[in-house]
């Protein structure tokens, strides 16, 4: 075991896979010589060479399009999109090509691309460095969508994503790259050292795609969340004194339906939380699934806490970001509701 932050864990996942499989290659903006703007690929080019860790032109559509072609020719590309906010120029390549290639050729052609991309707010990044576009991708058949909340899961999920023959969009909540974040920006930064999930094996292991984790057991309410808000939810539950069970989805598509529904059937109350905007968001799908599967167990309407339906505002980050106060208010509202 080693102590790793999320950046180191993600780098370790790529290192392990590049070492095991010569077909694994990395391409993206600034990923090579420099090692990535968030340092996730630091040292990989020195170790594996310029043919396997490739600095790409600033053209996200080109990066994803070229990665698809590489995958068709037997490589297992990891494409880094520097910020999730920059992924849109490659959207057609993801939706029309990457996601559908297996389907439209009945399995004759496929391309096992993993797209890694830092997402989410809390870093004063304004509207072009803070978005959480995962719901746009969970809506697309043919790709998998993943978002870890800690170093251990990040490494295991990334290795599982790279090994998957299905394309995966791997969202990395950049606010928690260096340490867990409970939603309070005024507190000093915390590192992953003291966190049990900062203990990461150095070798190969996987965290299966599609398996959620109960990160806090509780009996009064289920909070279904993922990414940075897993940590915010814990802090909010403690602040309210409500005995909340927190389900960290880890994979959004496929989603762990039994884990969610078992928990909600037990607690009878549910709050869904994500950073992404609310209307038409992934939380709406979760709410629909939970109400269908758990309707007769529910004692209150399902609550949702999400980013407001505005672009991500630079100066009002802490009014926008679903922090501890917003989640606490959400928890109390669901707890207070009676038939």
């Amino acid at each position, binding site marked *: 075991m080693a102590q790793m932050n999320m950046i180191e864990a993600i780098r370790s996942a790529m290192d392990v896979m590049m070492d095991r499989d010569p077909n694994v290659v990395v391409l993206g903006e600034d990923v090579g010589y420099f090692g990535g703007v968030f340092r996730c690929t630091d040292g990989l080019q020195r170790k594996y060479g310029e043919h396997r860790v490739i600095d790409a032109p600033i053209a996200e559509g080109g990066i994803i399009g070229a990665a698809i072609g590489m995958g068709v020719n037997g490589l297992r590309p990891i494409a880094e999109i520097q910020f999730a906010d920059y992924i849109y120029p490659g959207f057609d390549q993801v939706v029309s090509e990457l996601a559908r290639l297996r389907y439209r050729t009945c399995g004759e052609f496929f391309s096992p691309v993993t797209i890694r991309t830092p997402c989410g707010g809390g870093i004063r990044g304004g509207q072009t460095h803070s978005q959480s576009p995962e719901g746009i991708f969970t809506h697309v058949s043919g790709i998998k969508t993943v978002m870890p909340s800690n170093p251990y899961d990040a490494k295991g999920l990334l290795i599982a994503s790279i090994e998957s023959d*299905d394309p995966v969009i791997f969202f990395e909540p950049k606010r928690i790259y260096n340490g867990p974040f409970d939603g309070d920006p005024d507190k000093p930064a915390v590192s992953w050292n003291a966190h049990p999930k900062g203990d990461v094996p150095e070798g190969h292991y996987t965290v299966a795609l599609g398996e959620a984790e109960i990160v806090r057991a509780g009996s009064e309410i289920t909070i279904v969340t993922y990414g940075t808000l897993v940590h915010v939810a814990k802090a909010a539950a403690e602040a309210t004194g409500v005995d909340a069970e927190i389900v960290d989805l880890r994979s959004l598509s496929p989603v762990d339906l039994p884990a969610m529904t078992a928990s909600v059937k037990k607690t009878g109350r549910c709050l869904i939380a994500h950073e992404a905007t609310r209307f038409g968001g992934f939380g709406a799908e979760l709410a629909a699934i939970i109400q269908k599967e758990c309707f007769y167990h529910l004692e209150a309407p399902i609550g949702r806490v999400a980013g407001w339906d505005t672009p991500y505002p630079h100066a009002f980050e802490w009014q926008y970001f679903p922090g501890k106060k917003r989640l606490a208010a959400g928890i109390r509202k669901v707890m207070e509701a009676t038939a």
Partner: protein
Amino acid sequence: MAKKSRLHIPRPTARPGDEPDFSYLDLSPAGAVDKPSVGARVRDIENLSSGLVRVLDDEHRAQGPWNPDLDPEKLQVALRWMVLNRVFDERMWQIQRQGRISFYIQALGEEAVSIAAGMALRHGDMCFPSYRNQGLFMYRGVKLVDMMCQCLSNTRDMCKGRQLPIMYHSKKGNVFSISGNLATQYPHAVGWAMASAIKGEDHIAAAWLGDGSTAEADFHHALTFAAVYQAPVILNVVNNQWAISTFQGTAGGERRSFAGRGLGVGIPGIRVDGNDLLAVYAVTVWAADRARRGGGPTLIELVTYRGGAHSTSDDPSKYRPKDEWKAFPLGDPIERLKQHLIVEGRWSEAKHEKLVADLKAEVQAAWKEAQAFGTMTEGPFLDPATMFDDVYADPPERLEFQRQRMLDIEQNGGGL
């Protein structure tokens, strides 16, 4: 007097009712363009992007440095493939008009594009076609009956009813899946070629798109990546003058050739007579040699003319002169190769008539065979349960649930 607008709206030289006018096309006589060595520097061969490489002259003789000196037997085979492409298209068009398939796209007048490339490339080279490259699929061994079954979405359909007619693919033939979203295959070809170089293999990739699609971002992404990494890839722009109703000027072809698009990023551009099989073959071999030797990508503009409607859903009489093709100065690729073989004493009208008749019979036999696997109205039909397959290698449970739900409703009528 009205003030002259500073906004330029490109207009074709002729619309319905006008005399066809191809005065905008820059033409060079056969044999007039030099053939550089495959190792030539881009800056030394910029002329290739504005000239027009032609081998067959107006008397149907092969001329000049680009003459590939192909055996007449090979040319007869080439002619056979082009005629097959056309005869197949004619029959499928008719079949669509009879309402027996939903959609079709023909390659009328552009047959040399696919067949010449098919001959010039090696089987291990990967092709990323556009929707008018059916000739490549034929040349690379996809059976006519399989192409017809794809168009019928029947029980032998390679796409299991998931794709619009003509969206073929062939893993065995090394021809990629056709996408309805234009130009997306261009960066795929570059990525495939990069992978070939990364793996140290000597296969190259080739991609095709139309003049209209050069406006797509993917075209520019592909050119940039191909140039940056000197990917072993041939990027073909089939300039057939028309993108549905907009002429090539609407895609930006008024002031500079499409081949010239390569120069800005350091890729040699070659403008070639796309209706001259010998010329297309020769430039493709040149570009393939260059790529295989590590010389990087080449952009080839194939100047041709879309002889028919864009697709069965299109009516070109609404936007271009009816007889425009007849006036096209580069003629018809099949007629030109046929006349060449005739003047060389290696072909005759009688032989040609027999070839057309034989191929029509072959196509008709394939059609008969294809229908036995099901038509749109008569079985056997594809099992709709298969529509849930192949979405993922490792599918989520919800797909199996939805499959059962669909089957239940189909079988039990949803309680109605």
